[in-house]
């Protein structure tokens, strides 16, 4: 089992949790303010959540892709994908930091 793929799954899990936190704040604010700004943030969060959920499905459950990502994909490609995910996680940590305030 490739360690990069495990790390990848972990970052996706962290991303999903952070986005859930953001969605709870933005969702409550949307219900209270009903403005286009709060709606925009909420929909943005929803789409980013879907993106991560889809990624998790591809890496963990999809019968064809799951095997390909774990076993057949060259290490260099695994690292590249991992790097992109790490940047997303860092971005989400900072966004959560200013939002959970």
């Amino acid at each position, binding site marked *: 089992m490739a360690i990069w793929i495990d790390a990848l799954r972990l970052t996706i899990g962290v991303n999903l949790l952070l986005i859930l936190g953001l969605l709870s704040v933005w969702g409550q*604010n949307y219900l209270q303010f009903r*403005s286009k700004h709060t709606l925009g943030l909420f929909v943005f969060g929803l789409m980013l959540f879907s993106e991560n959920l889809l990624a998790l499905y591809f890496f963990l459950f999809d019968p064809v892709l799951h095997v390909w990502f774990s076993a057949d994909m060259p290490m260099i490609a695994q690292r590249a994908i991992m790097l992109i995910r790490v940047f997303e996680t860092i971005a989400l940590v900072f966004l959560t930091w200013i939002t959970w305030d």
Partner: protein
Amino acid sequence: MEGVLWYVFTGTRGGPNRVRIVRTLRERPRNANQLAEDLNLDYKTVRHHLDVLLENNILDCGGDGYGAIYLISDQAGQHWETIEQISEQMG
């Protein structure tokens, strides 16, 4: 300033309470203790929100320490229409 106002008031967890604080201070300036009483909020919560609002130049502060009086900053006053718009939507 506009972007800051929208995010501080409608993008964050404490946003709705910050709107209440700014509305109340618009009526007349108060200190943290009076605000906590008038809004029925925890003193520490109010202090935290006041610090955030000061840091973002939405409020100004006169005096020091416990009795410090908080008021709407000139900059926020110039954008009062935006704050009003946010506040109206909150109902």
